[in-house]
């Protein structure tokens, strides 16, 4: 009886591991994964191009809070890194908190009603000072391109911070915006708080 139970546990755990693992083929082939950002770094000389692609699992997006202008969404995304030594996938879980008072739409609207001559330059400064989005980013797992899990002693990333509207956060901003589109069928920056 006990042996049967153990056998059942092994089968179940193997099945669970298999369903949680993710491969490059699944990310490219399944419509639930949407490519929301990609970047290719080109180095001069003999270095080949490195590529990064972010896939949002659109089925994973769930609304945690809705109290306009504040919103909170949670989702899972995968970053695929392609180097010369191979392809690696990292799974992240992200919780994004949005304040649509700082969307570009809201900032432009506020600028237009606050001054007789609206300053778009002031909008840029305000948006660069506060993007309106905070993230709680947790690295969950690392995989090889074929979906086998990578065991590593390198600690998993955990960040809790505001997003910056700069190149360094462009990928995470794209993820947060794509989650907003999945949940509310509108881009974050197109929301206008009046």
């Amino acid at each position, binding site marked *: 009886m006990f042996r049967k139970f153990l056998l059942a546990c092994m089968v179940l755990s193997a099945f669970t591991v298999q369903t949680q693992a993710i491969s490059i083929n699944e990310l490219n082939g399944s419509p639930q994964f949407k490519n929301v950002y990609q970047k290719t770094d080109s180095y*001069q000389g003999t270095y080949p191009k490195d590529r990064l692609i972010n896939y949002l699992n659109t089925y994973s997006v769930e609304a945690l809070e809705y109290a306009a202008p504040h919103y909170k969404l949670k989702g899972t995304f995968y970053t695929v890194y392609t180097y010369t030594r191979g392809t690696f996938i990292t799974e992240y879980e992200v919780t994004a908190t949005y304040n649509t008072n700082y*969307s*570009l*739409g809201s900032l*432009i609207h506020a600028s237009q009603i606050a001054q007789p*001559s*609206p*300053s*778009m*330059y002031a*909008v*840029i*400064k305000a*948006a*660069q000072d506060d993007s309106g989005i905070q993230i709680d980013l947790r690295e969950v797992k690392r995989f090889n391109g074929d979906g086998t899990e990578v065991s590593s002693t390198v600690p998993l990333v955990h960040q809790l911070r505001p997003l910056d*509207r*700069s*190149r360094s956060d*462009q990928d995470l*901003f794209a993820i947060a*915006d794509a989650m907003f589109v999945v949940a509310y069928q509108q*881009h*974050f*920056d*197109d929301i206008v708080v009046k």
Partner: protein
Amino acid sequence: MKRFLFFMALLCVLCISFNSVKAISNAELQDTSRFEHIISKGDTGGGDGKYIELSTLRDISTDARTKSIETKIYVVLPSSDLIREYTIRYDYNLTYSFANLVARMPEFTQRFPDFSLNDIWNLKMDESGIVGTVKAQQDYTLNGESKPTQPGYKGYEHVTFLTPTDFDFESYHVANRVFKKVFGIFYDDVSR
């Protein structure tokens, strides 16, 4: 031969005196009638900063769609006993001003139904609309003595305190400020 040596010596004296006239000290940069101090995010608060020499601001535009300005800007780094003088040319593509792109939003959404204001931000990230080109640079000590200009690191020659003028760089705001000094309006407020 004697004549040649005499002329060479005269030329050297002239060069030295010419350089000493052009040299600039930190004390002179505090003269607000001649220089405008730009307070930048990147400043450490240790007395560093950027100064526009107001008399050197020149509108050199030749094209209706692009405004061009040439000026001298001094970058002060007290911890390195350094004042770096840049003669810089800025070219502003008016089509890419933020106000102009925002004004064209209805046209963009008509052509691309999923176009978002965030796409305008990303467009600016790809191409800010401002190109800064350093024409010359010269180093001085804080007291205004000329010192040899350090060459840029190999492969990074285009990276200076004022260039490139990418949208998310502090140098972009310096270029916007220079535009306002000449045309009375920030570059990103220009709508065509």
